């Protein structure tokens, strides 16, 4: 899922200057799970905006705000409230915010910061394991991603900053390569570390990406 966090109110309010009426949009998927823009957060935002002297014309939780057609349709179903508003405040990931921007000519205000593609450890705890590099190396690294789990994306073993098995960047984290080594050793395939891994092909990271499953 996409992990996002809500922007603090003192960053949202300046973006709402020059108008008083706000329509708030949340998302029923990722933004609900990470408590950025679910029912609860949208309701709380409504209360906070009212306390700050704004008028909330309405709220909606869209099922997958990143779904562009659905977002357009859902906003049309609330046409009046949307039309009344000076701003559409969106509490979803950046993809969802842009679905809204595409579906309406109103000023769209981002109420959140999108952080990473996250695994869910348990309720309310997210970890980044994959950074969508487009050229997956997990087959060579015991199923642990050095591109993501190592802050330097090292492909050939630990850097000189590893100490007592911990990472130089944050010593509360295990060095990715220590974990990879232990896994490969456990599986009896340490030889996977014997040869230099080819450099990454960063052209996979050229954006924006598009993918169409429709046969041309």
């Amino acid at each position, binding site marked *: 899922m996409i992990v996002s966090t809500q922007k603090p109110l003192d960053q949202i309010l300046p973006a709402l200057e020059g108008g008083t009426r706000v329509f708030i949009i949340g998302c029923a998927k990722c933004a609900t799970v990470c408590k950025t823009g679910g029912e609860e957060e949208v309701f709380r935002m409504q209360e906070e905006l009212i306390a700050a002297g704004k008028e909330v014309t309405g709220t909606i939780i869209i099922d997958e705000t990143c779904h562009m057609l659905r977002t357009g349709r859902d906003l049309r179903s609330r046409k009046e409230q949307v039309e009344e508003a000076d701003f559409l405040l969106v509490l979803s990931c950046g993809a969802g915010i842009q679905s809204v921007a595409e579906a309406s000519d109103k000023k769209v205000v981002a109420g959140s910061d999108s952080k990473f593609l996250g695994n869910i450890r348990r309720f309310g705890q997210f970890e980044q394991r994959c950074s969508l590099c487009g050229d997956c190396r997990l087959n060579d690294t015991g199923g642990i991603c050095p591109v993501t789990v190592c*802050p*330097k*994306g*090292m*492909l*050939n*073993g*630990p*850097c*000189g*900053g*590893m*100490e*007592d*098995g911990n990472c*130089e*960047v944050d010593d509360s984290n295990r*060095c990715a*390569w*220590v974990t990879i*080594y232990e896994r490969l050793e456990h599986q009896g395939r*340490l030889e996977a*570390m*014997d*040869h*230099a891994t*080819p*450099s*990454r092909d*960063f052209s996979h990271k050229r954006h924006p990406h598009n993918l169409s499953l429709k046969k041309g």
Partner: protein
Amino acid sequence: MPSTLSRKMGENRFVITAELAPPRGSDLTLFQRMADIVAPHVDAINVTDNQGANMRMTPLTAAALLVQKGIEPVMQLTCRDRNRLALQSDLLGAAAMGIHNILALTGDHITCGDHGQGRAVFDLDSVLLIQMIQGMNEGRDINGKPLDGKTAFFVGAAAAPEVEPFAVTRPKLVKKAAAGARFYQTQAVFDPQRLSMFCATVKPLGVKVVAGILVLRSAKMAEFINRNIPGLKIPPAIVERLAQAADPAAEGLRIAVEVALECRTTCHGVHLMAMGRDEVVPSIVAALN
């Protein structure tokens, strides 16, 4: 190979290197003065590359200046601030300026230094950098395309004999050797026994070992290093010795000389890290001779 360091190591002579950081500004006066003090006593001077991710003058310029003065530099080059294009173009520039030794490093993470909000590059890592330099020495760029004039770099890599767990770092040492590293300049060593174990481990790789010698000034400095410098761990016994000493700076020097003397029999050279006290380099070298 035009590198004198390479020739000396080839002749199995014990080499001594020191290191200097380029200035944090355009004024090279102090850098030159330190180079003049240190150079007569050592075989080469390492020029650091934005060490600890703290912004300094490019090592390319500072190393080229040493060449002009007739001093042999080891230019350190990290993957943190340059992508493969910039690395190759700096390397070609270095070759043209008569810089023959490169210490190929991954580099500390950018958040370790004074520009923590900058973008870290890490397009390549040290193994891939060494591989690329080897290719350039053979006359081709990273994509295999021919160069107009190949390079002739003598390439070194970093190693950490006292790191834990050492086993995890071993495959990478092997990869560095296979990629073309001809010497390891090690992280500071304090335990001669660990160093000789390390030398025995890497001996089959045919790579020379130049042991890092750190000149400490006080227990406080040692503690600061332990807290702030990635990959550098000063053992408690050494910190204690400094804490107990009447003259900690002199004790730090004594420790450095003791370790350096042990290295004479175990490895192929020492790399003196004077941490700004470059004026002590001549006395350590004198003790070694």
